[in-house]
């Protein structure tokens, strides 16, 4: 979801930035060497995902894959998504620099929340992990649509119907992303189960993070 430059009002932009900065700080503090490569890989995946168009009815929608990042990285997903959105704004002209705060918040915050809620299921492996993948993929997209719609509605009451449309339009994307994240988690569970358990925060401070 990329809200274009010039659509939102200044208070909404400021609010987005005000949420993004602490999110980035929290994420960067939790970024350690063990997760760095995974974080970079997921940033690349998120960066590319917006180019993958899924034909749907008369139009097409593009993937977000923010749920996957949130599930595997938790708060680290914040800087990951920020970098992805920044590069998309600079290289693809998707979104823009002024709305980067709002866009980062609307994409990263639901992903992080889904990740924090569902990571205990993920660590159990098997079916709970698959469920966690499905719910994180779908929930993060729906949360993103809700937040982006809220940002639009807060700017202008006339955008309220548009905001509802944004949410409705993302329901199919949520289903697709849920399925994709489920398969990714299933695949990781078979090939690299350590990545799923690594997602749990360290039990004690200073203990092994993986």
């Amino acid at each position, binding site marked *: 979801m990329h809200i*274009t430059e010039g*659509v939102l009002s200044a208070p909404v932009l400021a609010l987005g930035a005000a949420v993004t900065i602490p999110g980035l700080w929290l994420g960067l503090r939790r*970024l350690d060497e063990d997760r760095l490569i995974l974080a970079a890989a997921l940033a690349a995946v998120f960066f590319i995902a917006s180019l993958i168009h899924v034909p749907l*009815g008369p139009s097409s929608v593009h993937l977000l894959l923010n749920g996957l990042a949130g599930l595997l990285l938790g708060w680290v997903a914040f800087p990951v998504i920020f970098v992805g959105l920044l590069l998309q704004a600079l290289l*693809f002209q998707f979104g823009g620099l002024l709305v980067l705060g709002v866009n980062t918040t609307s994409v990263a915050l639901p992903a992080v929340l889904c990740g924090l*809620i569902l990571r205990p299921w993920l660590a159990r492996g098997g079916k709970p992990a698959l469920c966690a993948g499905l719910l994180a993929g*779908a*929930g993060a997209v729906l949360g993103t649509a809700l937040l982006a719609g809220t940002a639009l509605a807060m700017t202008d009451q*006339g955008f309220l119907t548009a*905001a509802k449309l944004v949410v409705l339009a993302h329901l199919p994307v949520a289903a697709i992303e849920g399925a994709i994240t489920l398969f990714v988690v299933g695949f990781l569970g078979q090939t690299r189960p350590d990545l799923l358990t690594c997602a749990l925060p360290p039990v004690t401070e200073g203990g092994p993070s993986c």
Partner: protein
Amino acid sequence: MLKPVPLRLGLLALLLVCVTASWWTATAHAHRLLIMAWVQGDRLMVETAFGTGQIGANMAITVQDAVTGDVLLSGATDAQGLYEAALPATALERRAPLLIQATDGAGHLAEQTIAPEELPALAAPSTASPPEVTGLPSLPDHPIDHAQLSPLIQQAIAEAVRQEIAPLRREILALSQRGPGIPEIVGGIGWIVGLAGLGALLLRRKTGTNTHPR
């Protein structure tokens, strides 16, 4: 472990909504909105499209005086993504640049400014759109008045040229719609790799100073 039952039920409901949602025929325009506006005679033409090549139908169009911000025209594009309106006399009198904005109301906005040089000279509306072409076949029957004929010919030529270059305009719009290519994608991934390298370097330094305090 987090096990609130209402939370899980809520997530389950969310899941059900998601699964049934694939039958909903909703559209998402999560792409760049493009606009192309030009002045044709005394009329303003606007064409909108999305970066994917999809026609920008039913986009809200507003035309503003770029200096004062006064809204001169507003409307919406038709099913072909076209918007056409006569330029108001106030716009021609002011000779200010026109700011044309198109939005779908769902977070996409495109704008273009038309320089005052492109605006037609303020002339009597009768000369701007007379029913001139119908009069042409009967001309040979009468003594040709060059003073009358030359504006008619000019207008006919201008109209013909406009029609001829209409496909070119669309071609240009289509070219400007090209999405990101391989260089941008590879470049972006390169940036991510570079940032990861920088992060690794910083982390290594941090842990290095932590384990070997000097």
